[in-house]
Every structure is written in C-alpha cells, then in structure tokens.
C-alpha cells in the first residue's frame, strides 16, 4: 500500500485559495502538462520511431545491401533521451522502483514526513543532474564536440535531452514537494 500524493492520486488539495496559490497551481498544471505530453506521450512516440529506424536499417542492410548506418548511433541517442526525458512522467505516474517494506509499517504522519525528506533528497539529486548536464552540454558547444562516426553528429544537441530530462524531473519533484507540504500543513492545522 502506497501513500498517494500529487496528480493522479485523486487527493483533493487543501483549499487555501490565495492569489499566490492560484498562480502556483497554474504553474503546477503547466509542469504536469509537460510531464504528460513531452516526458510521456512524446517519448512513447519515440519508441515507435526507434522501432521504425531499426526496421529500415535491417531492410537496407539485408535486402538492399546498403545499410543507412543510422540506427546504431541515433538509436543510442534516442534511448538516452527516452530514459532521461521519461524520468518526469515515470515519477508522476509513480513508476520508479519504490521499496516500501519499512515505510508501510510506519504511522501515517511519520510516513508523510519521511516522504518529504526523500522528495527533498531526490530534488537535490535532480538539481545536481541539471548542473552536470549543463556543464557537459556547454563543454560540447565550447569544444565543438562531434561524434567520431560517419555522421559526425554535433554532440551538444542529443546531449540536450539530459538537461531537458533533469529539469523536468526537478520541476515535477518541486510540485510534489509543495503539495506534500500543503498536505502536512493542512493536517497539522486540523489538530
């Protein structure tokens, strides 16, 4: 049994309708729109494109004897993109691996506090990911890094999916943290 917070959980948000909160809720909806369509739908579509690319590669290799030599390199970039950009959607849908052996035996209030701690830790990790990805991409631009293959792909472009993915994950985590804090505050105020 999991504690359900955030979008998709069906949990009603505390109704503290100040102007600032309304703005924030609007921002949350934007973040979740991105998590759903960019991190989820677009990346799911990429799997189909990847499949087509591999199919074309196989056909040109076996039947035409003139392989395109695209699938190996671009397939690699797409797999990384799907993994990284897909992080936010997977988080939103609670699809990441979650060990609840101990957590499920804790009282609800302690469980929520522990959840806040883990969310903050995850947020710190995702911010570090943003920083590291940014550094990688900026260096690739600075040095004009290209792949050594026949395609000589400028590496900064596929690497940008690392920044996009980690920023989206950080944003989704931020939404969850704020919602959890609201829930904790509401629970505390009701006592």
């Amino acid at each position, binding site marked *: 049994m999991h504690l359900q917070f955030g979008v998709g959980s069906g949990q009603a948000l505390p109704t503290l309708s100040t102007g600032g909160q309304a703005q924030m809720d609007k921002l949350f909806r934007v973040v979740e729109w991105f998590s759903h369509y960019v991190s989820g739908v677009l990346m799911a579509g990429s799997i189909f494109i990847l499949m087509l690319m591999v199919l074309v590669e196989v056909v040109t290799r076996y039947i035409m*004897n003139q*392989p395109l030599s695209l699938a*190996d390199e671009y397939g690699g970039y797409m797999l990384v993109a799907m993994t990284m950009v897909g992080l936010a959607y997977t988080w939103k849908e609670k699809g990441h691996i979650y060990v609840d052996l101990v957590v499920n035996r804790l009282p609800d209030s302690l469980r929520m506090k522990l959840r806040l701690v883990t969310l903050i830790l995850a947020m710190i990790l995702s911010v570090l990911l943003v920083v590291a990805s940014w550094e990688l991409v900026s260096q690739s631009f*600075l040095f004009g*890094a*290209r792949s050594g293959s*026949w395609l000589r792909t400028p590496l900064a472009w596929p690497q940008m999916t690392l920044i996009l993915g980690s920023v989206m994950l950080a944003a989704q985590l931020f939404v969850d943290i704020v919602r959890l804090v609201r829930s904790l505050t509401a629970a505390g105020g009701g006592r």
Partner: protein
Amino acid sequence: MKQRTLMGALGLVLILVLGLAAVPELFAQEKKVYEFTFAWNDIWGPKFRASQIYRPGGEMQRMLWERSGGRIKLNIVPRMFPGTEILQAVATGKADMGDVPMPYLSGTYPLLNWGEIPGIVSEDPVKGLAEELAVYQDPKVQKLNDTALRKLGLTYWFITQWDPANGIWSKKEVNTLDDFKGLKVRVGGYLPTAGIKAMGASPVTIAGSELAPAMMAGTIDAVLTSLGYGYSIGLAKVSKAFTLTPLSPTWTAVTVMNAKKFDALPPDLQKVVRDVGRELEQAVSLSTTAEYIMSVDTVDLSGIKRTQLSEADQKKALEACKVVEQEWLKLAGDQGPEMLKAVKGAVEKYRSFTGK
C-alpha cells in the same frame, strides 16, 4: 667621507639582508613539489600496452618522480572520465594530464587524426608503427601538434601506439579488390568508412561488443580492426581470413598536459617531462611491435589465413582511397595542408634514413 663610508656600509648590510632573505625562497622553489592528476580510461586492464606505463606505480609515475628528484608527483586516476571526455577535462583543468585516444575524437579534432589517412605510413604494421613514431617525433610535426593543442589550452606531450586497425577479418577470403564489392564490413569512424566505401564494400555500424555474434548471425561479413584486438574478441572463431588493407594504418592515443600547468613548471622540470615522454613513447612503440609479431603467430596457429592484396590491387586500392585524404583535408581546416606536408616529409626522411 665618513658619511659616504657609512652609506656604503649600510648599503652592503641591506644587500646582505635581502640576499639572506631570498635564500630560503630560492631553496623553497627548488624543493617545491608539483602535484599533477593524470586521467586515463583504464577499460582494457593490463592487456592495454599503455597500462604498463600509466598504472599507479608504473613507469611514468616512477620516472617523473626519480628524474625530477621527487619534485613531480603524479596522482593517477583511472576511469576518472570517459575516453571521449579526457581532452576537455585536461583543457578545463579538471585533470592536469590525460591519455586521449585520437580516433575516438576524430569527429571533433580531425587535424590530429591524420593517422587514418591511407598510404602515408606503411600498411605493414611493423614498418607502419616505426614510421608513425618517427612522424610524431619530427620537430615540425611536434610544433604543429602543439600549436593545435595550445588553442585548446593543452600542450602535446607524447603518444602511445596501438597496433593499427587495418585488417579485414572475414568469413570468406579477400584476395582481390573485387572481393570487397558488396562485402558488409563493420567499420568505425568517418575516414575508414569513406575508405571502405571507396573500395566497394558496404559499411555497417554495429556496437564493438557484438562483432563476433554479428559475424556468426550473418549481419555482417567482415570486420575492419586490428589483428590482436580482433583475436582477443573472438573473431578468429568466426572468420576464415585476415587481410591487410591500406585503411586506418595507425591507431594512436596522444598524451596531453594542461598548458598552464606545464608552463608553470621551471625549465629543468619541463625538460624532465618532455624527456620522460619521449622515452615512454619509444617503450610503448616497441612493446606494441613485439605484441603484433606475437599476435601474427597466434593467429596463424588458429588456422586463419592471413592474406594481402596483390601489388597491383594494392595500388588500385590506394588510388581509390585518395578520397579519404581529400575528405580529411576538407575536415582538417586551414592547418590541414601544412600538417599533411609535414607528416609526409617526416615519413620520407625516416625512409631515406632507414633505406626502406
């Protein structure tokens, strides 16, 4: 007169005091220990010939320490960065020195990757390794290498040579240029791909870890790689022949140092660094040559037929591969023609010396 004597005495005392004050400073400078971080991507383990010099406690660390009288201390960090990122890491000061496998960076720094042009050094690996080393030790080429690397914030140090990836491991014998037609050959890198196309084969890109299974499954008919590496990944079990080609006649890593760190060394230590580099590259070159010769025996005993194109076909293949040099010149930029001239000049000089 008395005043003048007094002033003179005071001056002498001042000079003496300043001199005495400077002595510890000079002493300290002479004793200053320069600590450097050396990054290399140790993914091959001890079978990587450069690992014998790079490993902690290995020749490079020891020679620098001993020759500098304990003033150069290396902190060797294997796998600090992936092979493709070491150059940037050293240039930006995250590491002070590093081993940069140039073919991996051929897309970004084509100028430093002239070694993949067919026909400059001999396709016979024993001759080719010696010729390539002579090129890298040529003062003109060294200056050009250093100029190119200085633009990135690096200084050229020395090279470590692998045996060249210039052989075709194939399921059928490849004896003539016509045998290349339609052959699905796994090849890596822009220039070797251009070359294999020019020779009439179909280049295929497949992950390096899948070569033997891909040969077995018929996904590819052949692999362009070196004799020793091909054997070590099991290609002898799925191939009938190994044919030398003019493609990819060298496979070399350049060891670089952060330019600011190098320039900050006193001249005597700069000389130590340069001299040690030169000795190390010679040691590695000889080790690679010996290893290649042993690999030949091993491959022969495994039942693989080693072949070579006839002289006429070799000429035709080289002619077809001229396109590789043209492609390289397009990629290498303004310094390309000068580098090519210097490299070819160095090979010529070496051949005139050895009479080969």
